[in-house]
């Protein structure tokens, strides 16, 4: 039987990898993938707690998180497309249209 803390440690590692990717990369699409990694780490923690606390609420919440992630990916990728039309690249350093 794998213990709860093993699952949580895996979740923590995934989340940290996502944070490092978010901080280091300049390509907006890879930054988005890092966000997906972090969301998945949270999902893993939800499912692990749901399993070990004999509750189903965690699994229902994962369902909601996935719906929000899908909506976020759609809108974010549409924004990236719009930025690409304006700037001809997707480098996060050059996205300064809203700066004043």
């Amino acid at each position: 039987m794998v213990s709860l803390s093993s699952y949580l440690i895996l979740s923590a590692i995934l989340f940290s990898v996502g944070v490092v990717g978010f901080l280091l990369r300049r390509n907006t699409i890879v930054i988005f993938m890092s966000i997906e990694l972090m969301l998945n780490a949270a999902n893993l923690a939800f499912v692990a707690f749901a399993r070990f606390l004999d509750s189903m609420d965690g699994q229902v919440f994962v369902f909601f998180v996935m719906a929000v992630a899908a909506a976020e990916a759609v809108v974010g990728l549409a924004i990236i497309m719009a930025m690409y039309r304006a700037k001809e690249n997707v480098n996060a350093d050059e996205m300064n249209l809203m700066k004043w």
Partner: protein
Amino acid sequence: MFETFLFVLLAVVTTIAAILVIVQRNPVASVIYLIITLFCLAGIYLLLSAPFIAVIQVLVYAGAIMVLFLFVIMLLNLEKEKKLIYRNRLQKVLGVFLGVVLLAQIGMIFSSVLLEGSKGKFPAEKVAALGNTEVIARLLFTDFLLPFEIISVLLLVAIVGAIVLAKKQI
């Protein structure tokens, strides 16, 4: 024993693929490694006796969302990044350092706090007898009906927003 072996295998593959996602120069390769990560996570959900979540992980995440990422990458016609990190070395060092600090903090919380709580109403045997999908569906349409309806509105707003953003003139 077999469960532990499977967990270790899936966890190692997940971690390696996740690290490869953020160190690839070619975004298409990043997407492929992210798909591997998501598939392994689906396997871990199966180990946690959550088959419904595992299936929608493959269908929605590895299927729909990742195909969307690939579509956008192909549409944008990006070339490989010349350098992985454009700014100075300080950013690289600081970023990795902050990641390690965050990992240590989360680990300390997990090891110091007692991870126990009051047990819920659905032990694994009961869920297996009722059917995992059936239990989730029953909860979704009773206890979580309001969030479920709000999610439908959120998805509608996302669809409208994506169409507006994808138009030629914003």
